[in-house]
């Protein structure tokens, strides 16, 4: 098992490995889960972000602009 973790010196210590098996595993699990979740979450997010900006926002900015220049001047 330790062979899989050459980059993690903690795991070379058998005693602490035995004590923290659950912990170590959940951390490893997290890595793959993180990647999977991250990819899907970003795809979801980007799908909305890629949409054309609705006209209402173009209108809104025009409105704010005209208030700014016209309004109290």
């Amino acid at each position: 098992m330790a062979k899989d973790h050459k980059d993690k010196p903690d795991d070379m210590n058998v005693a602490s490995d035995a004590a923290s098996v659950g912990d170590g595993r959940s951390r490893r699990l997290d890595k793959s889960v993180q990647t999977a979740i991250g990819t899907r979450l970003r795809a979801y997010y980007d799908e909305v972000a890629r949409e054309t900006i609705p006209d209402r926002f173009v209108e809104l900015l025009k409105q704010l602009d005209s208030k700014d220049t016209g309004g109290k001047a």
Partner: protein
Amino acid sequence: MKVSDEFRDGLIEAIPSLRAFAFSLIGRPDRADDLVQETLTKAWAHHQSFTPGTKLKAWLYTILRNEFYSQMRKKGREVEDVDGAYSRNLAVHPEQLGHLDMNDMNRALGKLAADQREALILVAASGFSYEEAAEICGVAVGTIKSRVNRARNRLAETLGVAGETDYGPDATSEAAIAHTVLHK
């Protein structure tokens, strides 16, 4: 004082990502865009309190987030029905949530506690650092980290991204089997 062109351009540039943030918080396109509209209006009105040179995006996200929670407080019970809101949304805008992944993710996000959901989105989707997310939410970095962690686990559970089988070498073979079965 007039709003600078730079500020104005910054707002426009941020709209797509603000929409995505709002949508992932609320799960409904109509309400999400209302929230973005509120955010832009507030930002415009308070442009003088923005410190040039700092991240405009983070500033805008903070406004959007505050607006979201103040609306939630005002509407109280109505907005607590997040799950319902998420499923209603699916019926209203099937074309926007074209494929199954969108629906799944939307529903899964709806099942998260609001504080966990926002932490996860900020860090994993919006591209903020833990520190920036902590600042946006007004909590400690450690709090954000643990919220993100819990949110990830919950999401993984709901979406079936990882289960007990992911622990050992069996996960690979099981995944292969599942793959074969699904693509028969």
